[in-house]
């Protein structure tokens, strides 16, 4: 059953150095506040998993939390490069970063297989590319048709972290809008943390919403604004101007560190 605890407590109890940790949210509902708490608590040697590492992963990597990155597209959407990710890969700063990269279709299948507790996902893909040589895929033959298909090992993180709009007092969670792989990552992970905009007395059923019952969630933390600069549908918009500004902030190591010092390390987790 989900416990409702502060974000600081949730991270302290559930995320350990060396863990495989997936923060998901496909553009929408990216758990930025939880990422910042990982940085404040100085988690190290994490294997960070995420389909679209963007600003929050740039921050985690630049602050030295990651040993390895499993991903399928790493950039600042519509803006350009992630400078901290590039610096780690190109120059080993602040440390070397091991990469395991997939295509979106491969990684989505790997999450779905993880949720189903299957050893691998299947895609018709990777054929004729250099990716196959560089990543963890294997070729299998369909036992019914003989077709050659790519098997992608399932993703089963130690900890899955997502942000949602609402929880109720029992720790049931409701999220809506673009839902990415949030349901899959929570079901695939051994432990999970869900940060929410607010706790409501009753969750109103909504079409197309994702409902995560309290019995599949380990901890719920109330963090209003916890997705910013990403957005929470129905609560606040994506801060596109910040994504554009991040390009400047992150380009230079000192400017980046100074910004992190001021905006993340010196801030307390929003607790409720």
């Amino acid at each position, binding site marked *: 059953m989900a416990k409702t605890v502060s974000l600081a407590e949730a991270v302290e109890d559930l995320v350990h150095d060396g863990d495989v940790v997936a923060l998901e949210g496909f553009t929408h509902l990216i758990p930025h506040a939880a990422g910042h708490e990982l940085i404040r608590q100085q988690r190290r040697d994490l294997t960070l998993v995420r389909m679209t590492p963007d600003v929050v992963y740039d921050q985690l990597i630049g602050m030295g939390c990651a040993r390895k990155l499993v991903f399928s597209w790493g950039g600042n959407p519509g803006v350009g490069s992630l400078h901290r990710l590039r610096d780690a890969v*190109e120059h080993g700063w602040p440390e070397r970063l091991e990469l395991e*990269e997939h295509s979106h279709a491969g990684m*989505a299948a790997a999450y779905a297989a993880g949720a189903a507790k299957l050893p691998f996902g299947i895609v018709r893909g990777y054929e004729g590319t250099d990716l196959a040589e560089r990543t963890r895929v294997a070729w299998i033959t369909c036992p019914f048709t003989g077709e050659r298909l790519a098997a992608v090992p399932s993703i089963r993180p130690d900890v899955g972290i997502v942000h949602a709009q609402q929880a109720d007092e029992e720790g049931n969670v409701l999220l809506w809008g673009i839902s990415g792989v949030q349901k899959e990552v929570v079901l695939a992970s051994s432990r999970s943390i869900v940060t929410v905009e607010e706790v409501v007395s009753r969750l109103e059923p909504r079409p197309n919403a994702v409902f995560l019952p309290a019995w599949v969630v380990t901890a719920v933390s109330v963090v209003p604004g916890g997705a910013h600069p990403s957005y929470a549908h129905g609560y606040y918009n994506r801060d596109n101007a910040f994504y554009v500004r991040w390009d400047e902030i992150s380009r230079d190591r000192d400017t980046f560190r100074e910004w992190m010092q001021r905006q993340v390390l010196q801030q307390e987790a929003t607790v409720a």
Partner: protein
Amino acid sequence: MTQVEALAYTADEMMAVAAARRLRDGTVCFVGIGLPSRAANLARSTHARGCVLIYESGTIGAKPEHLPLSIGDGELAETADAVVSVPEIFAYWLQGGWIDVGFLGAAQIDRCGNLNSTVIGDYERPQVRLPGAGGAPEIAAMCRETIVMLRQEPRAFVEQLDFLTTSGAGVTCVVTDLGVLEPGHDGELTLTELHPGVTTDDALEATGWDLRFAPKPREGDPPNADELEALRTLKPANGNTVS
């Protein structure tokens, strides 16, 4: 009859218009962000109002009024016919074979239409680490047609890719700021159309291999007033200063 005054436009605008013209009313399009999104939304606001835009965030039939900065801007979800999960959009809709046209960008392309969006330089010690594959390999493989948009210059149109991210086997058309290339019978890209005022020498100079030309490349029409107006009316979403 007065002469119609020639309209001023940029090479990028010509490129967006040339790509948009390839989409028809009712075409189901899987759209990447940046130039492809601009072209697809232009088509939807001019000659192809029924063009169905699908973004990889799971938004099916998105009808944004502003150009989104990301593939998951809120406006895409609000205006979509349906929003599905990311595993579903890739497995059921893309791999399921329901998409007519895929729209991609890349950092490098070779003469067979193979694309690199992974690294410049050596993979282990890259000179430039690029974002990576994203949806591109499966989009190019699964859509009936794949249109690639990129500016034609020697560092992008290369003899040898640094990394093959996406197979060119499914690429049916490449729209650049100079013209349009299409694969010939053997799969090699052939320049079939030049934008107004562009010469074959311009195209040769901008290409890192010995570019093949159709016997008589067509000269494309310049953007008309409606297209230019529609393109310039497509305002970016808040804070988006980059296109």
